[in-house]
């Protein structure tokens, strides 16, 4: 069966609507529907991954540059898989620990969040990308303050304000893009921007930087990372674990725009994205590592770990070569899972038996993953990135290696702070350990099958940097 490309967006949206209509006060029903929806998304992902890609679809059968198109290429399908997998694990954790009992409407918001994420990864239209950004943000506003409390609300207000300013910038950027090119369809934009006369280069460069700023806000890239630590540290920990994939939306969008619309060979924009992203990534990594050293408590440390992962990721992505992109994508999968695991453990630590040996072992394994130490996949990811950014080895190597050391020190200190205590009698509920163990198994699998994985990602990255099939697929819809 060939699934319609719109189903990964409609399924969570419909699930959320049904929950709100018939299950407002029925938590058991909401949990069941949530599980069904996430299982369905996983099934859809498998079905999509088995198709020949890229595939495109015109919504409402409007011809391509005028109507909205959905496009599934290798990168979209990879991100859909990451969302479905992480959502499933986080949902298991939520069910096991009862985070959804803290306040109303957890599951509908969770589903709307998935809808926004899937939509952002599938859309082939720049304005629809804005709309799906808003969908996932609105859901995230609700999730951030889930459970309430003064600190959470204050952090939530700041988070909303930052992102509203970001959305405004996004609209201005899109306005400039439309004024210059007369289109917002990404494939059409790629052709129009490449053929832009020299006189319009200034405007399109402004638009490109504005869009990059928006993606930097989403990805928490320095200097636009200030909203992240408080927001992630104050949100309920399972929500923060799901948000580990949300910062990757910014990275995805920057990669998509930087390879499809503003590739390094474009006369109008040149290597603009690469020139801006490399220093930003390096500084982000430094800020994140220093933040981890200075952070109080596991939640805030995990939040800064998310910032270091963004920094490392952008160092790789700023290469804009197939080699660097495939290294970055490998690290993207790894870091999303590792940071999510750290947040889930932050949740366990606050519960009964949180200081027990079992949790300490999980923390130790996760810390190895987050810091990028052997034997877990973080080490391979960082190694691939160091290899791929050999062109700037003089800056990239010292920064990546020094920050890795700082990360290890910070996590070692946090670990001794949390667990170097006399043994306690209480044990954690076995069910609450399932989700972190699942994520760690995924990291182990990512390490063991690193060879086939990097082969797949290399093919995927090659397609990203030679987007002729993508463009042809969208053009065929005319």
């Amino acid at each position, binding site marked *: 069966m060939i699934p319609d490309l719109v189903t990964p967006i409609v399924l969570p949206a419909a699930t959320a609507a049904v929950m709100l209509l018939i299950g407002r006060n029925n938590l058991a029903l909401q949990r069941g529907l949530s599980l069904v929806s996430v299982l369905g998304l996983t099934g859809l992902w498998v079905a999509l991954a088995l198709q020949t890609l890229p595939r495109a679809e015109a919504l409402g059968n409007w011809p391509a540059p005028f109507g909205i198109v959905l496009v599934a290429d290798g990168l979209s399908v990879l991100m859909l898989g990451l969302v479905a997998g992480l959502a499933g694990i986080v949902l298991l954790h939520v069910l096991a620990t009862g985070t959804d009992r803290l306040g109303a409407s957890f599951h509908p918001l969770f589903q709307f969040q998935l809808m926004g994420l899937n939509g952002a990864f599938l859309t082939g239209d720049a304005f629809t990308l804005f709309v799906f950004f808003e969908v996932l943000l609105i859901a995230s506003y609700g999730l951030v303050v889930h459970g309430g409390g003064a600190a959470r609300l*204050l952090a939530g207000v700041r988070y909303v304000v930052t992102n509203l300013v970001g959305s*405004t910038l996004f609209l201005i950027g*899109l*306005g400039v893009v439309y004024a210059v090119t007369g289109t917002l369809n990404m494939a059409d934009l790629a052709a129009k921007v490449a053929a832009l006369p020299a006189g319009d280069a200034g405007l399109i460069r402004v638009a490109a930087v504005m869009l990059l700023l928006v993606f930097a806000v989403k990805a928490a890239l320095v200097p636009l990372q200030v909203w992240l630590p408080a927001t992630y540290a104050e949100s309920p920990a399972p929500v923060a674990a799901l948000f580990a994939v949300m910062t990757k939306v910014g990275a995805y969008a920057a990669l998509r725009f930087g390879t499809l619309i503003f590739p390094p060979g474009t006369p109008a924009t040149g290597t603009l994205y690469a020139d801006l992203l490399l220093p930003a990534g390096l500084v982000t990594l430094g800020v994140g590592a220093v933040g981890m050293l200075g952070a109080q408590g596991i939640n805030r440390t995990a939040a800064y770990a998310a910032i270091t992962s963004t920094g490392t990721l952008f160092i790789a992505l700023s290469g804009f070569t197939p080699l660097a992109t495939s290294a970055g994508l490998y690290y993207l999968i790894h870091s999303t899972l590792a940071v999510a695991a750290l947040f889930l453990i932050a949740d366990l630590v606050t519960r009964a038996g949180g200081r027990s040996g079992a949790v300490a072992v999980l923390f130790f394994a996760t810390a190895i993953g987050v810091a990028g130490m052997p034997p877990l996949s973080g080490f391979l990811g960082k190694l691939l990135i160091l290899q791929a950014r050999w062109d700037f080895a003089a800056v990239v190597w010292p920064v990546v290696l020094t920050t890795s050391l700082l990360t290890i020190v910070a996590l070692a200190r946090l670990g001794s702070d949390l667990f170097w205590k006399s043994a306690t009698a209480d044990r954690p509920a076995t069910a609450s350990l399932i989700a972190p163990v699942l994520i760690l198994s995924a990291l182990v699998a990512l390490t063991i099958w690193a060879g086939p994985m990097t082969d797949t990602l290399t093919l995927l990255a090659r397609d990203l940097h030679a987007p002729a099939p993508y463009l042809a697929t969208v053009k065929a819809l005319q």
Partner: protein
Amino acid sequence: MEALVAMAIGLLTAAGVYLTLRPRSFDVILGLSFLSYAVNLFLFASGRLAPGKLPIIDPGASGYTDPLPQALVLTAIVISFGMTAVLVMMGLGAYLRTQSDSTDDKDAE
């Protein structure tokens, strides 16, 4: 006409940026509203200013204005309206809980 619209957008943006940088949530919400007005006008102008022209097909029309920016503005208005409502509710909640409408991050570190 172009100068007038450009100045209006600039003025709204300036007011919006100033108010958004104020430390009180009420000012920030007003500032974000100004910013969204500015952005809506800007999007509208991105399809070129064509006064007195129709956006829809009509046999007697002498020329058309670009309908797409109007659709974009409509979407942007709906979204910014909803966002403002969410922000007002959250700001109100935070104010009632903490008796403070500060949007500074001074107590979080």
